[in-house]
């Protein structure tokens, strides 16, 4: 059905171009191995590149990610397929795998695009911008975000009306609607699964009213509002554009909750919420920020001190899980919870509510391998075959796992896990070659 199938071979296939996949690929390439990164999104950098600042140092996330990302994209030993998906992987021999990779058309010739954004200006269509988590719109011809890598345009064909406006203005004639899906047959010796995580969808908790009440956002939407590449120029309620001054964080939204099928702790929400609270207090000095929590899990290096710092800045911490949320006529929200310290149920009004959504597995990895060979753990993360002595080993010899594909973890842990998987992959390659 497709034209031709292209063949290529690499030493290692890294699935996922987030921070873990990127770090693993760099380690491998720096040691002389040829690496292919297959990234589903239009840009590498994963979720981290979209964050505001990172705890506990408050470095801006982009400042850490962008140089890494440009190092990856420049590296002669690394090939990157963006907008591509692994369809299947099967073992071909003792020492090799064959991967079927589908590259969906971008309708833009990456090498020719200069990122001038003229097409974006010309495009008449406006749809929700997924990289701004739907807070604003984007065009159907668009550059994913300003620090994307590659920073080139793409056409969202689902929403494109084929009016041709973009093509008319493109100075380098790099827009090409004749592109078709390409199928690659990739031969590799080892595979690193770095498929990352999904965020919990709060629509699954109807009593919180996300989606219905417009001034409830997810933590990722707040992350975007605080990021340098933010959608609004300041922090605004998406319901009516008001600058909020009583902001609430609802921790454990979709974590530690058997009723939504996710009994585990997401490990990062406490800290990112504390970080956002600190940033909000900086951005909106008059605002009150309240964090409703079950237990604060500030366990990492410098985390407890960071938590103390937030308390010192005046962030209000209330122990109690939010039971339900109702909306007032002015768009403000009433949060009902039990104040555990006082042992009484209370209802408190806030004008913006941030749901600190949890980490869910990205179950894509399940379908890569034939016959369900890649074992998953009870929570559908990639199972670690030997979690204590070889944390990146999976149930398949020669396939390693890095970062949040094995479970929730923060950025430093993801990077260490990526380091571990690349180390194991290199010694595997040494043993097999």
């Amino acid at each position, binding site marked *: 059905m497709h034209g031709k199938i292209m063949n290529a071979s690499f030493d290692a296939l890294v699935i996922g171009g987030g921070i873990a996949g990127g770090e693993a690929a760099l*380690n491998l390439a*720096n*040691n002389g191995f040829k690496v292919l990164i297959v990234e589903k999104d239009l840009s590498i950098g994963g979720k981290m590149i979209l964050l505001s600042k990172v705890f506990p140092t408050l*470095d801006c996330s*982009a*400042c*850490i990610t*962008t*140089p*890494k990302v*440009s190092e990856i*994209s420049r590296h002669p030993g690394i090939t990157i397929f963006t907008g591509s998906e692994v369809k299947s992987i099967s073992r071909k021999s003792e020492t090799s795998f064959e991967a079927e990779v589908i590259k969906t058309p971008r309708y833009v010739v990456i090498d020719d695009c200069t*990122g001038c954004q003229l097409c974006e200006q010309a495009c008449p269509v406006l749809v929700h911008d997924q990289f701004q988590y739907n807070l604003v719109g984007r065009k159907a011809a668009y550059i994913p975000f*300003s620090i994307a*890598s590659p*920073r080139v345009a793409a056409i969202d064909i689902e929403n494109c009306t084929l009016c041709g406006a973009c093509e008319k203005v493109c100075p380098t004639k790099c827009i090409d609607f004749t592109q078709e899906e390409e199928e690659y047959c990739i031969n590799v010796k080892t595979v690193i699964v770095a498929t990352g995580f999904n965020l919990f969808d709060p629509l699954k908790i109807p009593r919180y009213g996300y989606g219905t009440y417009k001034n409830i956002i997810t933590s990722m939407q707040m992350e975007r509002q605080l990021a*340098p*590449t933010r959608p609004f120029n300041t922090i605004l309620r998406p319901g009516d554009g008001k600058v909020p001054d009583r902001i609430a964080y609802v921790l454990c939204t979709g974590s*530690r909750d058997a009723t939504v099928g996710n*009994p*585990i*702790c*997401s490990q990062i929400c406490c800290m990112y919420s504390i970080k956002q609270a600190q940033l909000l207090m900086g951005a909106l000095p008059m605002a009150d920020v309240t964090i409703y929590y079950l*237990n*604060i899990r500030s*366990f*990492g*290096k*410098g*985390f*407890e*001190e960071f938590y*103390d710092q937030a308390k010192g800045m005046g962030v209000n911490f209330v*122990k109690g899980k939010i039971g339900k949320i109702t909306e007032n006529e002015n768009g403000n929200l009433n949060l009902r919870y039990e104040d*555990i*310290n*006082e*042992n009484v149920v209370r209802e408190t009004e806030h004008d913006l509510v941030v749901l600190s959504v949890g980490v869910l597995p990205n179950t894509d990895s399940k379908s890569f391998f034939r016959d369900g060979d890649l074992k998953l753990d009870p*929570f559908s*993360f990639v199972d670690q075959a*030997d*979690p*204590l*002595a*070889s*944390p*990146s080993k999976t149930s398949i010899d020669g396939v390693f796992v890095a970062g949040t594909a094995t*479970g*929730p973890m923060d950025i*430093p*842990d993801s*990077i*260490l896990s*990526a*380091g*571990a998987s*690349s*180390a*194991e992959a290199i010694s595997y390659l*040494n043993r097999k070659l």
Partner: protein
Amino acid sequence: MNKKIGVYICHCGGNISDYVDVEKVKKSIEAEDGVFLAKTTLFACGDANQKEMVDDIKENELDGVVVASCSPKLHLLTFRAVTERAGLNKYNYVHANIREQASWAHSDDKPGATETAIRLVKAAVAKVRLAEPLYPFIINSKKAVAVIGGGIAGLRAAIELADMGCPVTLIEREHFIGGRVAQWDVLFTTNETGKEVVTKLYNEVIRHDNIRLLTGAEVISNTGSIGDFKMKIKVTPRYIKAKCNEGHLLKAIEVCPVDVPDEFNFNITNRKAIYHNFPSEYPQTPVIDIKNCTRCGECEKICPSVDFSQEEETIEINVGSVLMATGFDSYTPADGEFGYKQIENVVTLPQFKRIIDLNDKKLIYKGKEIKNIAYIYCVGSRQIDGDNKYCSRYCCTSVIYAAMQARHKFSDINNYHFNRGIRTYGKQEVLYAESLKGGDIYLQSYEDAPPVVEQNNDKITIRINDILTAKKEMSVEADLVVLVTGMVPRADNSVASLFKLPKGRDKFFNEIHMKLRPVETVIDGITICGACQGPKNIMESVNSALSAAIKSFSYVSKGELELEPIIAKIDKDLCTWCGACAEACPFDAIKMVKDEKKDIAAINNSVCKGCGMCLPVCPSNAINLIAYSDKEIESMIDALAG
């Protein structure tokens, strides 16, 4: 020579531009001598800007570049690489730190911050004006790594390095390997015992030709640096012949009259001067603890394998990189802290784990059967008054798991957890849920109102104002109190001071950057991993160990390294050889040589570290440090003075 200089001023996505008027900075330096172009950018480090810089340098034939952005610790190397890609020598690049030292430091004073930034950028421009191209020295890097510490992290790193094809010397201070993991019994998630894990790794270690294992070994000196560390290692003998008869040895242990506290069991039991840690420890040969041995000779009479003639050795090794995996100590509570050492039956978590391991069927401690156990959390962690502000991260899971193990192994155990908020992060949460369902009782207090342990007659009572019960005062009578002690840095960290490793606020070893360079230290060639870097559980330790292994490997794998050409330089005309510089040099890098007419000093390029200690002592001002010459420093001072 008039340079063409390009200046890039970074917004840092608001980090700088929120406090520093970057446009004003740009305007005020545009007129500076030599500045050809000045630009502001949202992210200087972003790919797009990097490309733009390369294009600018090429197109305009710039021969000097300044980026004013964050600390050079983060991105000096990034921009040096950019200039190199553009075909410009990377030492024609100068970094101005206007984030940490201007926008952030003076975020309370925007005009002040802007003014500071202007001066800092002008100083950088002044410096780059005088910069000259420099070329790195290439040195040989010995393809070998020393791994210090034979615990789980060290073992795992050593195996990985060996697998990657790198010779490793694994140095363990104790006579037995396995570190803390060997001391733990059943381990969380896999239910393997610590012994099983250590056995598995030990078998790999001895299988490997690339690994040389030294036990009872301590690093006593280090000279040299990256690529070429020269270390002396003192190896204490076992005083037992390698080939020994086990039956005889067991008898020898039996007859030994010495009785000293057994550190392996955290002093809850005693051992002899000739001892095993446990029957299957590694290496399997027992040891005579010569410090406590009375030389009575009883063992020698029974066992021909005992050999007091063995002598301490000093081994010299030469490696390209050092990987530190020295582990942690468990916090020792102060006398009287929750009754420690004042009330009998108050033990620490590691002791408790050993107690579980040593008992069978019934849980007996000090002759009494234990039924009710109280666990007091955060002892030595998250301290309000003490120094340890940090959370030790592993203890919640560790103690919950140990408590469950006690409940399963022995009958009728009641567990009471006096905690400050349970932190079973990630998948460990299921363990907490299981513990609750199993009937363990959790009581929570705030840090400023910890539980109180009291002894009345024979009974130990623990009282707490439980915030989960509206701060009602609750009490429990316990047979055993377990203090859940956190991780602290090793008390004896002499090996670290040999290498001058920097420590963080928490006194653990500090990495350069938690996310960018998480296992590297400011001392080139030395990597850190495991719990010596901060509290970690086993999986996290191993992840960092493998990351450190690959980093250490990258220092030595190519056999050579590039070194910074920043060294001292002698002005032959001015030098009159007085010897003051040679005396001042801590590295012995300066020697006298005969020049045409006179004696002068000469620098050994590959030994000089570029510290500059020789500069101020020269009476004739004949020495300058490359890139820090009088001219450069003075022109910077001029620029800063404004």
